[in-house]
């Protein structure tokens, strides 16, 4: 009779109610973390004699207060979503990818190089070509720490952080010399930026007078693709198995280091894609400060989206909005935009701190449900 219990659990409403409860916990508690982070930051603002009410009002107005604000938030959400999706895949294999910044840089540099080298290609080849090259370059930058982790057990957090700095210096080197805009050189301005991309490679802007470009749909499509990849393919299953229980995966014949390396490589590729899309849709050239902290904010978006590809969509819109809003706040009430980094850090601390707690509550409820179900079973 006891054996029947799990089957019964699957078929009765207890299960779906638990599912909803789990969904509720996993969504609401991280969200409460954001609220708490905002409250703590408000206290700090008070301490430095800034008005938190006007600051936050400016921030939310800048993020979601108008159609224009929404388009800007969605523009920022696009790379965030792609980076967050990659981090989600890596996380599912228990690998933490902090290298988003470097991977974005590599992707944007490689995609720009491709567009500038083959400006004559027709649009329908050039755009996918740039995206592929950007993806591959980012993937290479994710493969390095993945390989080092798989082969030499190098801590991927440290290696990805170092690779961020290396990529940044590499970009500075290229923009200050080999890739510097020839027009800037001719005009004597020597701005640290690349030449403008050929018009053929520009992503279409959907609303006039705004930056909102079609890259958003690419990012959304990848959210669905990543969902299918993780839950409907064998490799995706293996990656999740590695994350849930590496030892059991190993004994059931899954190559744990390989899957971790693969997940970091894909994560790098997605971040690289985010970088090249940012270039083709927004700046149309590589310039300093291009990454805008997306590599780190993407981590927060992934965590807040409960490491679920579809959950990361609203999370990246929220954080994209906060990034835009932070700039508005800086302009309107002179509270530095750096505040957003402090808030993000607190969110990460809260979300990571509450993860185990949520799991325990869910586990307890599930155990209780099983006992309940088997009790009913034995009575009938």
């Amino acid at each position: 009779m006891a054996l029947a219990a799990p089957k019964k659990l699957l078929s009765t409403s207890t299960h779906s109610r638990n599912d909803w409860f789990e969904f509720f916990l996993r969504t609401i508690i991280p969200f409460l973390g954001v609220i708490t982070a905002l409250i703590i930051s408000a206290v700090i603002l008070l301490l430095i004699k800034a008005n938190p009410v006007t600051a936050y009002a400016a921030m939310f107005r800048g993020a979601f207060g108008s159609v224009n604000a929404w388009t800007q938030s969605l523009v920022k959400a696009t790379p965030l979503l792609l980076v967050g999706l990659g981090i989600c895949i890596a996380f599912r294999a228990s690998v933490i990818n902090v290298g988003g910044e470097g991977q974005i840089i590599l992707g944007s540099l490689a995609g720009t190089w491709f567009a500038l080298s083959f400006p004559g290609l027709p649009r329908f080849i050039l755009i996918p070509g740039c995206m592929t090259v950007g993806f591959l370059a980012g993937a290479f930058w994710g493969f390095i720490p993945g390989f080092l982790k798989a082969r030499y057990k190098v801590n991927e957090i440290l290696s990805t952080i170092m690779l961020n700095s290396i990529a940044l210096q590499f970009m500075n080197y290229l923009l200050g010399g080999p890739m510097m805009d020839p027009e800037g050189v001719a005009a004597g301005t020597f701005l640290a930026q690349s030449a403008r991309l050929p018009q053929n490679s520009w992503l279409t802007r959907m609303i006039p007078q705004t930056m909102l470009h079609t890259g958003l749909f690419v990012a959304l499509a990848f959210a669905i693709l990543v969902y299918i990849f993780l839950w409907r393919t064998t490799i995706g299953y293996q990656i999740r198995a590695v994350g849930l229980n590496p030892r059991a995966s190993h004994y059931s014949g899954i190559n744990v280091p390989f899957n971790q390396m693969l997940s970091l490589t894909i994560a790098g590729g997605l971040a690289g894609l985010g970088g090249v899309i940012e270039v083709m849709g927004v700046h149309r050239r590589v310039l300093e400060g291009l990454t805008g902290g997306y590599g780190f904010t993407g981590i927060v978006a992934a965590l807040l989206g409960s490491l679920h590809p579809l959950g990361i969509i609203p999370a990246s819109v929220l954080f994209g909005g906060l990034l835009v809003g932070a700039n508005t706040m800086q302009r309107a009430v002179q509270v530095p935009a750096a505040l957003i980094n402090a808030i993000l850090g607190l969110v990460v601390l809260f979300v990571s701190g509450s993860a185990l707690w949520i799991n325990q509550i869910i586990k307890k409820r599930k155990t209780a449900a099983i006992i309940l179900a088997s009790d009913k079973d034995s009575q009938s």
Partner: protein
Amino acid sequence: MSDIFNFNVLAGVLRTMITMSTPFLFAALGETFSQLSGVINLGVDGIMLLSGFLAFYAVYLTGSIWLGLLVAMGTGLFMGLMMSFVSVTLKAQQGISGIGLQMFGLGMSSLLFKVLVGTVKTVSGFTAVKIPLLGDIPFFGRILFQHNVLVYAAFLLVPVCWWILEKTNLGLKIKAVGQNPAAADSVGINVNKIRYLSVCFGSMLAGVAGASLSISIANLFQDNLTAGQGFIAVALVYFGGWTPIGVLGGSLLFSLANSAQLWLQVLGVDVPASLAVMLPYILTIVVLTVAVNRGKQPAALNKQFFRGEN
């Protein structure tokens, strides 16, 4: 090219090396305690930034370097408490909570700097104290014995940490907790208490490391002053095989790379600056890859301890 190799330049490079190893030493020695107890604290860089700024600000306001140092230690301690509460009590995944702490430190230091100070300003920090007699030795005197108090303290800390870890009961407990928390727990060691203690001590030293940048080496604060030195310090602990002596070697190697790169730029050797700046980061990856001491890694590093469950 010939003037690069004369004695004055060599002395300059080596002297800068000693000075620049201070933040690495403080941060990495502290992180050694933390990691030996089983907690990898990746927030070191964030702690260094916020403590560095607050130390700078205290000196900027009052002119008292000792108050600045005290503020840095207090800030480090507070952030250490944050880290241990989230990672030890709430049992968060240590990699994530550390990154959270880093982002918090980075954002908060930048916010406070922009609101309270605004533009880059200098303060008069720790000044060099020439040790009598030893400081007069030609060549070596200038390299080793004409530094400020923080530099001497960093180097004195190496034997002190070694002594604590190898010769005291507390050191034994720290290592026991990092190797096998369940066994340590079963003989009555309070695992969480030891981890709190180690993380907080380590974070306090990270605070001093931040102060050594802002009120002893640079004597100023700017956005992201550390430029990732906190993360390099974490890597140095791996390089040093979780021993203070190894950490000393690693710190000297890295600051040598840093100071050599600075001197190359000063002397106008034709290397693109951005490629030279890459050097320490590449070195870190190489060092992590070939670190020969991996066998000594604390067995419970980066693992949460659940009492009575394993």
